[in-house]
């Protein structure tokens, strides 16, 4: 099972080994999709956790217990694909690989890979992406 979360934590938690604890104690694989962590300022991590449902639940509980604000990723990228002209401008900024061009140079959007970074919103010259 895979779940995506945004983790926000206070400055005093920056020094905690969150990632290794999740992996070792809860057997959860962690994929960091986006992050902004600096000492003294606290931090934010967008992560995808993969593991058995029970382990995921336990891991989520532990994070909350130590003071991490855990919010399931609720934002979605909405793509008006019918109007797409397959120019490819959005693929220039899509680091997660959710937007790509296939062999026929048609744009392909794989929502499973999207981390809702929103860079494509400004990259699309036809304004076809919105965040909801």
């Amino acid at each position: 099972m895979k779940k995506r979360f945004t983790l926000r934590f206070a400055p005093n938690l920056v020094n905690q080994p969150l990632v290794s604890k999740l992996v070792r104690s809860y057997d959860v694989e962690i994929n960091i999709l986006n992050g902004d962590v600096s000492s003294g300022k606290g931090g934010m991590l967008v992560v995808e956790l993969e593991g058995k449902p029970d382990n995921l639940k336990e891991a989520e509980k532990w994070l909350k217990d130590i003071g991490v604000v855990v919010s399931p990723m609720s934002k979605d990228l909405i793509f008006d694909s019918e109007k797409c002209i397959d120019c490819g401008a959005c693929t220039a900024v899509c680091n997660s690989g959710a937007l790509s061009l296939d062999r026929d140079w048609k744009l392909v959007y794989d929502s499973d890979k999207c981390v809702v970074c929103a860079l494509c919103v400004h990259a699309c010259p036809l304004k076809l992406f919105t965040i909801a």
Partner: protein
Amino acid sequence: MPKTIGSINEKIKNGSSVVVTAQQFTQMAKSKSLEELAEEVDVVTTATFGPMCSSGAVINFGHWEPGIRMEEIELNGVNCYEGLAAVDSYIGATAESRYDCTYGGANVIEDLVTGKDLHLRARGKGTDCYPTKEIDTWINKDTVNEFYLFNPRNGYQNYNAATNSTDSIMYTYMGCLLPHNNNVTYSTSGELSPLLNDPFFRTIGIGTRIFLGGAQGYVVWNGTQFNTMQNRNDKGVPIGSAGTLAVIGDAKQMDTRYLKAAYYYKYGVSMFVGLGVPIPVLDVDMAQHLAISNQEIETEVCDYGRKGHPAILRTNYAQLQSGFLEINGEKVRTAPMASLNRAREIAELLKQWICKGEFFLTEPVAKFPKDSSVKTMTQRQRDTQ
């Protein structure tokens, strides 16, 4: 007997012409000799569908009663040029609406082509012969007289690719350039691109009939910033921007599938223009030009984060279209700005038009200049005479 435009048109008329797209021709050249190809194929279709800022449309609104000599002309809030005769105007693709900077001349043109009603406002001085001082009305493509595209610069022969070495993202007409050279964007359809398949303008010139925005149009002049002095590689291909086309076509007959308004964040409005140019395979020399492959078409990657956009490396379109490129030993993603998918569609469509006998080739009325270079604007004093 050598082929001529006349003999090819004769074949188009009786339905026996052999037409292929530039990509198909390049493929064929891998297994056949240029002599065989020059014999076998009559026409090669080329195309591109990319953002072309130097585009716009001429509109004649028809006379008002009593007459108005239009000034301060606005269509859906977008300023149109007033310095022509009473009800003639020109709307440029990049002009922005005074109410919404993401809506501009390109959107007005697209909306008109679609058949929408647009809000027209204009003032007049009120002269003896044109007494009306203000109008406020709605127009569409059926209420106006002429509505034709006139694009001063389209179809760049080649163009540099772009990257950004600075610490922050740059929003440019070459798209969003990520910091630290994290991506490279390019905007040419490579081996399918019109002017790369006739690099010395042997067959394309003033009067050449083309596909423009879904209708038949014409090349009417060399495009602005026409440059014949660009360095060329050993295949004769200019490395970087060189030739350009000025084109005209009846916008009333166009299709918004091949004419699309675009907005580049923090840059402005532009327009995707669908352009297709048929190139006759007159002889072995033309076959050789048309057989050009992406591998042989080179361009420079320029750093848009530094003054003057200096070139940092040279690459080719096979590499750019592969999706990756190496900069300083790092693998960097490449992305196009022009739609290759739709360019292929245009080349196929033009091929069908020719095969069905609906589109005939033209001999240029006059050739493009052979010694044109691009000047820059500088701060200077008035010449004393």
